[in-house]
């Protein structure tokens, strides 16, 4: 069909901070209840990075695990892409800090910002480089320390998010395996429904921006819910269509972990039984760009995904952005 190389995921890894904040812990911080959070979101607990830990630290741990899983050395990595909306700082990029931490001295490195869809964006970018032969071994990471950007007085948002990191290694693979198709989308018109307004050139940090809590995540829940349910099904179908596959041929769906009600509603629209859908948000909440790679790593390590399986990754998030990938699993 073409002269491109097939590109597959040859290793996965994830890292979650040790500290667990349960819904009962949240009851002591804001006026909420375990029952309210569980029925509205499906979330039971989330992980929290300590004061000394930044996005690059957990990203580096996840990266080491993915490289070990793929059996590849740091010096063989020639590209690092980090998807995050909670970078250590604007400069240097989190990808460069990871490069230093893991000793990937031969790699180019940069960050991608596409919120919860970030990992699928980053993986699709990495895929293009390997497909064309420009690079051979790419490390794609989704890492977030969202708990450092939450308004702990806003019970509608602070209960939703958690910290974590997931990584994959992309390499050339056997023809017919690997990433069969990908689809990315965006709609900037809907951008205002999910924002972190302060700290950029529009609204540089001042005493006022801090007082007004503008350095925290703001979300219009019902707008995002509607968008998410519709786009998740549509994005999955779009990627399937590009690889000439039907919904019935999906062996496993790894969706972005924002809300169990969104996942269930999208699965219902796709007519996909929940046994084929991976869910871990009960333990971790929404980890934005880290949700998909952490879920993928867990699903693989637990044996839900085996060689030859057709796996669909799908995510949606701020921007607004969305994306999906269909993968024929190689390992």
């Amino acid at each position, binding site marked *: 069909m073409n002269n491109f190389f097939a590109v597959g995921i040859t290793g996965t890894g994830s890292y979650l901070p040790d500290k667990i904040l349960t819904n009962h812990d949240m009851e002591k911080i804001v006026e909420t209840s375990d029952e309210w959070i569980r*029925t*509205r979101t499906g979330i039971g607990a989330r992980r929290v990075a300590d004061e000394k830990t930044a996005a690059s630290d957990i990203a580096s741990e996840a990266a080491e695990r993915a490289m070990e899983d793929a059996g590849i050395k740091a010096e063989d990595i020639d590209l690092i892409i980090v998807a995050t909306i909670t970078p250590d700082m604007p400069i240097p990029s989190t990808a460069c800090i990871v490069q230093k931490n893991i000793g990937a001295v031969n790699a180019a490195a940069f960050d991608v910002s596409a919120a919860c869809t970030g990992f699928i964006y980053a993986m699709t970018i990495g895929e293009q480089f390997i497909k064309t032969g420009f690079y051979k071994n790419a490390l794609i990471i989704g890492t977030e320390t969202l708990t450092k950007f939450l308004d702990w007085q806003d019970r509608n948002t602070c209960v939703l998010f958690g910290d974590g990191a997931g990584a994959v290694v992309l390499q050339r693979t056997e023809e017919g395996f690997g990433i069969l198709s990908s689809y990315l989308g965006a709609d900037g018109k809907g951008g205002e429904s999910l924002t972190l307004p302060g700290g950029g050139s529009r609204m540089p940090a001042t005493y006022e921006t801090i007082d007004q809590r503008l350095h925290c995540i703001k979300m219009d829940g019902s707008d995002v819910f509607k968008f998410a*349910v519709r786009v998740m099904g549509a994005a999955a179908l779009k990627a399937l269509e590009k690889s000439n596959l039907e919904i019935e041929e999906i062996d496993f769906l790894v969706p972005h972990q924002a809300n169990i009600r969104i996942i269930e509603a999208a699965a219902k629209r796709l007519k996909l039984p929940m046994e084929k859908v991976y869910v871990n948000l009960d333990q971790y909440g929404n980890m934005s760009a880290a949700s998909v790679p952490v879920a993928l790593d867990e699903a693989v390590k637990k044996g839900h995904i085996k060689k030859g399986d057709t796996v669909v990754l799908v995510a949606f998030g701020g921007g607004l952005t969305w994306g999906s990938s269909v993968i024929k699993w190689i390992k």
Partner: protein
Amino acid sequence: MVFEKIVKIVGEQLGVDDLTTIKKETSLMNDLEADSLDAVEIIMAIEDEFGVEIPDDEAENFKNIGNIVTFVEKNL
């Protein structure tokens, strides 16, 4: 016709067995104990069923099933 279809959607979403208990005066939140996400899902299912768009500010004004029926009938 619109009313019956909406009753069916509401019943399915909220797991109401006896659909005759859902009347025009019935309130989703107060009588059927729907939460805000149930309401959004019901609105979405109604939009898909009838091919209409129900803006959020309209949806917020619906007090009962009858209000939804009236809106859909006007906008069909």
